[in-house]
C-alpha cells in the first residue's frame, strides 16, 4: 500500500515535470481572458503620443526555425535604428515578437496574448501559412491591422473577409508564373519535373507553373514536411527523364533533394522558389553531411531561383550597404543575412505605412492609408505592391537569378505580373533610391 502510494506520487511528479517541460516549450502561457482591443470607430489601442506597440509571431524553435528565426532580429534592429533617429512622428516603436514554433495552436496563443494582454496596435510580418492562417479570423474580428504576412499564400488577399490583413512577398502563384515563363522561353525543349510541398504552397505554385509549362511537365512529385525520405520521389523524377526540376519547398528539402540527386547520380537543372533557395543556409546544411565530401554550395552552383529583395552578399547595392550599417549599429553581432534583410525591409514597410496614416494614426486609418496609397509605396523591394481597397496582395514581381557560389547573377530584368491570366511584363518602376538614413519620408500626394 505504502509502496503503491509512493509509486503514484512519483508518477505524478514525473507527469508534473513532463507537463512543466511541455509548458516551457509552449512558452508557459496562461489562457488569456477576454476583454480589450475591441474595434470601434478609430481605435487607438497600442498607440500613444510617444509610442506605438507592434507584435509578431515567428518560429524561433523547431523545424522551421533555421533562417526564419533571424527575420525578427532584423526587424528589431531596424526599429531600434528608427527610434534612435527620433522615431515615427515622435513615437518610439515598441516591437514584441514571440515564438510559435511553427505550431498553429501556439500561434493562436501568442497572438491572443499580443492582442489582448500586450495590447499591440498592429501585427507585423507574422510568419507561415498554417500558423498565420489560424489567427486570421481573430485578428479580423478584433480589427487589428495585420500587415505584411511573411508567406506567399493567396490567403492574405481576401479584403472582404479579412479587411485588415495584407500580404507582403510575391505570392507563390505569381512567383511560379515568373519562374515558369523564364523556363518556357529559355528551356523550350526541357522535360520538366515538379517537386512540390504537399500543401497550398505546392498547389498555388502548380497553378502558376501550368499556365506556361503544362505541355512540358513529365512528372509531378510531392513531399510531406517531416518525412525526410524523399528517395522514391527522386527516383520517379529520374525515371520520367525530367531534365529540369522546379522545386517549391523549404530550405531543408533543397538540401535533401541535392543529397538524393547525388545518390542517384541524377543532375537535372534545378529551379527553386525563393523560399527554399538561400545558398548560404542550404550550403551550410549540405556542407557537413559527409565530412566534407560534399563541398558547400558546389552542388547548388548553377541552380535558378528568383529574388525580390537586396542580397546580403552584395555590398555594392545601396540598400544592402544601408542595412549593413543599421545591423552594425543595432544587430546582435551576428552576420547580416538575407533573412535579416527580409525583416528590416518589413520594418521599413511598416514605418512607411505608419507615416502614410498621418500624425495621429488609428487602426482604421492605417488600413485605409495602405489601401489608398499602397501601390505607390516604394522601398528595397523590387516591384510595387498591389494594395488597393479590393486587393491586399503584396509585391508584384521578382527577378530570375542564377546561383554562382554563395552569390547570384541576374538572368534578366525584374518581371511583374498578377494572379490568374495577367500577363508578365518587365518592371517599369526602376530601383528605389535609399532615403536619408534609410528611413522613409512621409509619402506625398496621396
Amino acid at each position, binding site marked *: 500500500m505504502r509502496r503503491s502510494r509512493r509509486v503514484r506520487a512519483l508518477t505524478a511528479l514525473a507527469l508534473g515535470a513532463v507537463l512543466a517541460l511541455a509548458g516551457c516549450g509552449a512558452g508557459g502561457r496562461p489562457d488569456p481572458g477576454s476583454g480589450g482591443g475591441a474595434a470601434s470607430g478609430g481605435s487607438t489601442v497600442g498607440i500613444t503620443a510617444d509610442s506605438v506597440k507592434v507584435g509578431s509571431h515567428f518560429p524561433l524553435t523547431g523545424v522551421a526555425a533555421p533562417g526564419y528565426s533571424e527575420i525578427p532580429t532584423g526587424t528589431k534592429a531596424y526599429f531600434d535604428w528608427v527610434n534612435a533617429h527620433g522615431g515615427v512622428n515622435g513615437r518610439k516603436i515598441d516591437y514584441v515578437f514571440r515564438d510559435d514554433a511553427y505550431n498553429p495552436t501556439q500561434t493562436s496563443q501568442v497572438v491572443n496574448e499580443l492582442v489582448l494582454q500586450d495590447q499591440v496596435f498592429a501585427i507585423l510580418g507574422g510568419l507561415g501559412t498554417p500558423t498565420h492562417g489560424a489567427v486570421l479570423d481573430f485578428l479580423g474580428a478584433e480589427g487589428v491591422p495585420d500587415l505584411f504576412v511573411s508567406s506567399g499564400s493567396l490567403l492574405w488577399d481576401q479584403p472582404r473577409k479579412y479587411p485588415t490583413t495584407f500580404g507582403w512577398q510575391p505570392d507563390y502563384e505569381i512567383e511560379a508564373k515568373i519562374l515558369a515563363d523564364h523556363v518556357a522561353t529559355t528551356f523550350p525543349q526541357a522535360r520538366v519535373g515538379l517537386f512540390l510541398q*504537399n500543401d497550398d504552397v505546392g498547389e498555388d505554385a502548380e497553378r502558376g507553373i501550368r499556365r506556361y509549362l503544362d505541355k512540358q511537365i513529365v512528372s509531378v512529385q510531392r513531399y510531406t514536411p517531416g518525412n525526410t525520405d524523399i528517395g*522514391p520521389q527522386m527516383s520517379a523524377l529520374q525515371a520520367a527523364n525530367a531534365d529540369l526540376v522546379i522545386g517549391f519547398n523549404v530550405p531543408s528539402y533543397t538540401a535533401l533533394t541535392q543529397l538524393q540527386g547525388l545518390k*542517384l547520380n541524377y543532375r537535372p537543372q534545378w529551379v527553386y522558389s525563393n523560399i527554399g533557395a538561400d545558398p548560404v543556409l542550404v550550403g551550410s546544411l549540405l556542407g557537413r553531411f*559527409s565530412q566534407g565530401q560534399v563541398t558547400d554550395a558546389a552542388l547548388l552552383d548553377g541552380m535558378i531561383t528568383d529574388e525580390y529583395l537586396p542580397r546580403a552578399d552584395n555590398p555594392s547595392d545601396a540598400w544592402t550597404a544601408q542595412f549593413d550599417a543599421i545591423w552594425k549599429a543595432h544587430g546582435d553581432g551576428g552576420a547580416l543575412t538575407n533573412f535579416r534583410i527580409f525583416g528590416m525591409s518589413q520594418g521599413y514597410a511598416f514605418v512607411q505605412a505608419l507615416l502614410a496614416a498621418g500624425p495621429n494614426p488609428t487602426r482604421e486609418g492605417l488600413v485605409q492609408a495602405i489601401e489608398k496609397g499602397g501601390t505607390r509605396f516604394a522601398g528595397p523591394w523590387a516591384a510595387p505592391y498591389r494594395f488597393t481597397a479590393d486587393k491586399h496582395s503584396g509585391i508584384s514581381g521578382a527577378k530570375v537569378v542564377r546561383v554562382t557560389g554563395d552569390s547570384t547573377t541576374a538572368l534578366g530584368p525584374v518581371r511583374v505580373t498578377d494572379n490568374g491570366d495577367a500577363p508578365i511584363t518587365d518592371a517599369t518602376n526602376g530601383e528605389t533610391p535609399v532615403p536619408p538614413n534609410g528611413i522613409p519620408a512621409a509619402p506625398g500626394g496621396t
Partner: protein
Amino acid sequence: MLQFVNTLLTGLGQGAVYAAFALALVLIWRATRVVNFAQGAMAAFTTYLALLVVESTGSWWVGLLTALAAGLVLGAGVERVVVRRVGPHNELGAVIVTLGLFVALQALAAILFGAQFRSFPAPAGLEGFALGSVTIALTPSMLITVGAVAVVLLGLVALFRFTDVGLRMRASAFDGEVARLLGVPVGRMLTLGWALAALVGSLAGVLIAGGSLVWPAYMDTVIVNGFVAAVLGGLDSPGGAVVGGLAMGVILALVTGYVGSDLVPLAALAVLVAVLLVRPQGLFARTAARRV
C-alpha cells in the same frame, strides 16, 4: 525498371534502420516484458552526443562508439532510477513511465542541443554505385547500415539462444519470482536488458541520422514504423523484427513512389491493423502473444 529497383533499394535502406529499431524493442520486450516508448527519444539524445563528438573529432566512428556507450549507460540508468520504482508487476505503469520519459527527453534534447535542423555526417560515401551507365540507389553508407543490422541480429540471436546470460535474461523476464528462487540475479538481468536495448536503439539513431538531418523529433517516424515492424514480426522474434523492418521500408517506399507521400502514415497504420486482425501474435512468433 530502374525506378523500381531504386525505390526498392531506398526502401531496403530505410527498412534496415526500422529493423535496427525494432530489434531494440524486441530485445527489451524479451528481457523485461515492457514496450519502451522512450526508445526513440533516448536514441535521439545519444545521437546528439555522437554529433558533438563527430564535430569535434571529425570521426564518424568515434561518434558511433560514443553513442553506443552513452546508450548503454542511459539504458541502465533509466531502468535503475525510473522503471524499477514502478514495480515488477506494474507493466502498464512502466509503459506509461516510458511515454513520460519520451516527452521529457525530447524536450531536454531541444533545450540542450537546440531545436534547429542540423546535418549529421555519413559514415562513408553518399554517391550511389555505378553499374555501367546506370547509377543505383545503393551507397557505401547504406552497406554499413545493413552490415550493422546483420551483426546486431546475429549477436542477439546468439545471446538469447547460446549463452547463460541470455537464458537468465529470458527467465527473469518470463517469471521473476521463480527465476530469483533458482538463483538468477533478476535485478541485474533487467538492468542489462535495458542497457543492451538502449545500445541497439542508439545504433539505429546514428544509422538513420547519417547523411541526413537531425532535430529533436527526428526519430518520431522511426518510432512509429519500427514499432509496426516489431509487431509485424512478432514482438518476441529478432528475425521477425528484421523481416518486419525491411518489409515496412519497402512497402512505404513503394507507396511514396507509386501512390503518394501523403498516404505513408496511413499505410503504416493499415499494415498495423491488418497484422493485429489477421495474425495478432505476429508473423514469426512461435508462442501466442500475451493477452493484456
